[in-house]
């Protein structure tokens, strides 16, 4: 009987279609994720423009990014540095043919509306001796810290439950919003504040509650924004409350979390 070429092709294709192959011990295609791309920016706080670079240097990878809300289908393929001239939240993810897409990473960029240098700041209690930063003035140096809080002195670290900040200006200034920068890094037992309240002469002007932490939340540089009645003020008091205790899903459950602050912005 002649064996037709078509018979051979069909048999080979059938064998390739078997539902289950013998087990390979090696990690295979599309089983693990890419890491999120690195976001490099000249300054998170900027006066006119911020320049953003996205990095994922691995052969075959691409980066998709966008501004504002992210969805699975929107976004632009990254090719050149991005210029941002208004406050915005930038998101990005990395993709590669051999791996699952990365989780989305994001960074909030702020256009500075008001220079805070010249603002006197008093803090109570003092930061923990391990994380004194460079004193209270780092809260008005117009620079954010980064997630490597152990390096440098860009952060004030507290483990005291509630922190009081007293802000004072040489003469009254027009204010409608206060923003305060914080760090959330649960692996280091650092949690976002629970609530921030703003007072003037003991009268509460506004408050902001921060979203409760979740178990798989990645570390973030957060910024809590507290609108207050638009008016002129010469002094303000901020009460920043940490969580009463680290949540039950964390290995430090029940203990007092760390609170890290790095910047105050005024609009």
């Amino acid at each position, binding site marked *: 009987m002649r064996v037709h070429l078509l018979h051979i092709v069909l048999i080979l294709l059938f064998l390739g279609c078997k539902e289950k192959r013998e087990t390979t*011990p*090696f*990690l295979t295609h599309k089983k693990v*994720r*890419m*890491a999120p791309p690195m976001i490099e920016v000249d300054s998170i706080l900027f006066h006119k423009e911020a320049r953003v670079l996205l990095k994922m*240097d691995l052969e075959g990878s691409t980066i998709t990014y966008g501004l504002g809300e992210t969805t699975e289908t929107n976004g632009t393929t990254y090719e050149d540095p991005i210029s941002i001239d208004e406050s915005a939240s930038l998101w990005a993810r990395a993709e590669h043919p051999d791996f699952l897409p990365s989780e989305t990473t994001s960074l909030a960029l702020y256009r500075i509306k008001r220079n805070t240098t010249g603002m006197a700041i008093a803090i109570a209690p003092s930061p923990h001796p391990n994380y004194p930063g460079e004193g209270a003035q780092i809260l008005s140096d117009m620079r954010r810290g*980064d997630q490597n809080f152990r*390096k440098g002195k860009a952060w004030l670290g507290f483990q005291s439950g509630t922190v009081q900040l007293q802000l004072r200006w040489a003469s009254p200034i027009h204010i409608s919003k206060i923003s305060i920068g914080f760090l959330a890094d649960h692996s280091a037992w650092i949690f976002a504040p629970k609530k921030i309240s703003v007072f003037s002469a003991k009268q509460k002007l506004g408050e902001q509650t921060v979203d409760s932490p979740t178990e798989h939340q990645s570390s973030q540089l957060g910024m809590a924004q507290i609108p207050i009645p638009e008016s002129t003020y010469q002094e303000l008091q901020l009460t920043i409350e940490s969580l009463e205790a680290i949540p039950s899903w964390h290995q430090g459950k029940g203990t007092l979390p760390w609170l890290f602050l790095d910047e105050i912005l005024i609009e």
Partner: protein
Amino acid sequence: MKRRRFIRNTSMFTTGLCAAPAALFSMESYKDVIIGHDTHRYKIDLNWGALNSQYYPVNDCHEMVQDSKGRILLLTNHTKNNIIIYDTSGHLLETWGTDYPGAHGLTLHNENGEEFLYISDNLRHEVIKTTLDGKEVQVFPYPRESGKYDTKEQYIPTETTIAPNGDVFVADGYGKQYILHYNADGELLTVFGGKGDEDHLFNNAHGICMDNRGPGGPTLLITARQQNKLKRFSMDGRFLESYDLPGAYICRPVIHGDHVYLATIWSGDGSEGTGFVSILDKDNRLISAPGGCTPRYRNGALDPMYQAIKIFYHPHDVCVDKDENLYVAQWNSGKTYPIKLIRV
């Protein structure tokens, strides 16, 4: 007849065409991924060291060595079995060790044909020398005689390296950042280093090894993990040179042939879960970073490194076997067992 044959052939051909995409897709799903760069690339066996955690539990998997029989010895700080011994296929051979709650550093040394282990224990604040089956033969207690420590608790040794004559160098990587040089009898000879940012000082002197690759005799390679630097010292404690590895939080140097292998526990901004493996060539340039981005040098300086693939969480040590496969032990990774990278 011809028409019947034509219909039959056409049907088979059409069936084959329809089956082809599914077949090709199923083959693509089983494609083994390869990580690493340049001459050092690897396939990944994520399950190599997996054991039943009810019987052979681990907390942190800290370090691994290979003995002359080819066995892979893993050190964990779980006191049910501080030492877990595998063959290179990942089969469990034996376990021992219940007295090392702070088991952190593991070094193997061949002393006149007999092999010994040196265990650096963070919680016992001492280094313990044992046989390969767990008999303690010598203890190097905290160096009170150095005058550098007020209490035993200030001394938190992370790693050792052993000279051919039996002299022991201990890195106090979690304590006051000194390097302590003992003779084989345990007598303290010299102390150098300490905490600081200058070249001859350390921020987290986490790992140490002896480097015999150069023509001028052995030197010491010591990681300054928080500084992202690998530092070279003479055997008498003089700083010689430093290799910058920006973005790479390197744990301990392991030399195999001409290359240096370093588990890189964090990377980039040092966030949780950002590790990879670093491999340096004979000139101490980073040439491959399995799990990391492509190493690039511009004007002699390495571009900052970062994680590219979420394979490793917190790699703490790399063991290189005789076939140049790698075994990666991880810290604070959810009590996971070591991963094997197979050289391709």
